[in-house]
């Protein structure tokens, strides 16, 4: 990818107040430094800035998911697991 997807961390700083995000941050396994280090030698606790980043990213993701959840789709629409338009259907 050319950089982080638009969902994550468009800006920093305002985030901890966002809905539900603070609770998620405080329960993140990455925040329990000692346990994380025991599981992974290179693990390190999140910095204050990273916590803010994470909270913002979680909040952004939640908002995006809510937008997608709110979209109505006809029952006939199947997932695009076959991906791109098959060659036999090329326009």
């Amino acid at each position, binding site marked *: 990818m050319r950089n982080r997807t638009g969902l994550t961390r468009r800006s920093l700083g305002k985030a901890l107040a966002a809905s539900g995000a603070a609770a998620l941050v405080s329960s993140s396994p990455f925040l329990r430094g000692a346990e994380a280090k025991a599981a992974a030698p290179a693990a390190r606790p999140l910095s204050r800035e990273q916590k803010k980043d994470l909270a913002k990213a979680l909040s952004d993701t939640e908002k995006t998911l809510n937008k997608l959840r709110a979209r109505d789709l006809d029952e006939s629409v199947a997932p695009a697991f076959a991906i791109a338009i098959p060659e036999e259907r090329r*326009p």
Partner: protein
Amino acid sequence: MSGADLLALPVSELSPLLLSRKVTATALAEMSLARLEELGPRYNAVALVTRDLALEQAREADREIAAGRHRGPLHGIPYGAKDLLDTKGLRTTWGARPYSARVPDSDAEVIGRLREAGAVLVAKLAMIELAGGLGYNIAAASATGPAKNPWKTDCWTCGSSSGSGAAVAARLVPFAIGSETWGSILCPSSFCGVTGLRPTYDRVSRRGAMALSWTMDKIGPLAKSARDCATVLSAISSRPIAFDGSVDPRKLRVAFLDLDFGKFGEKEVAAAFENALGALRSAGVEIREAKLPDLPFEDVAGIVIQAEAAAAFENLEKSGRVFELADPDAPLAFEIARKIGATDYIKAMRLRTVMQEAMARFFSEWDLVLAPTERYVASRLDRKLDEALAGPDVLGGAGNLCGLPAVSVPCGFGKEGLPVGMAIVGAPWREENVVALAELYQANTDWHTKEPPK
């Protein structure tokens, strides 16, 4: 002719020199290897120089050509491959420290196809770690350090095919292989002033390539011209493809997107794109404004990539080695992805169906759509990328989510003399349309022949 001069030639001019034996594949490989070894570190463009393999392949090419067994236009041409394509017995690190000792026991399909075409692998090229699969916000998110733009070494190449863009621009190799999940071929092509081709999803086999997003990864070439990209794509495509000149680009229905540069973007980029439209119109192409379907392409693409990447790299999280990545925020990607439920992912994929159908309708009215590849020229190495590349990328989201082929061609210069690219996007499986317009543009302009300072 010096090595730099010779390596500045496109494949279409090098190939006749090799066939007529005015230049040998061995000499060409030696020139490329020398430049990779000398200049590769200047740009942080190289993960591994494959000297022994290259000379072996080049000597074999010379023997075959001398014996009259010419394999085609890539025979004896040196190239570099993004370091996410497996190479038998040669380190393939995915640009990431946790995989620094990874040595595959077979070649990726693309590497095999290029070997069959007689191309000479001279280097594995640097990349953003894991092709940016866990997200990244710094140019230095790579085991080889920040890739430096040959046009201005304190600026970035873009990613994730960073080394591929830099190596072609700096005349280290005549062409390179990159990959794109969202922007990773087109953006480095734009920032480095080279031509890049993103094929239709599934056009090129992903066997032996690192998976970031199984449903969005594509592999394609970066080179000096659209003609060269077409030549390489013909060699690596899993399905037959013919660029036989039968498409008249003047008869194609061409649209452009009038992007709003008021809030995001640089006016010099907008001006270069305007000039490019003017050049195409002067060449006889009718171009009219169009709008993409009003659908949340970027949101859905983001959800799909985040969910698939977190699954693809779950072993990194389990082992804790994710903390060895250069971007300190990489571990956060798993936390974020856990918010995406199974029904959310399925919903995104159902919306993807709607979007693919909407784009199919769009392409029943148009053959091609044009826009600036990026709103900006290359950013400084130390800038945060979410600021440097701020703004919507609707055509990128739609193109990658719907598996659409695209070419980025150099179309001028912006701030500080840095290259600007124009994206030409087509309907699925219609690479010949995309290439035909790109070739017409390059026949009428010379931006693709400009070279960075020596």
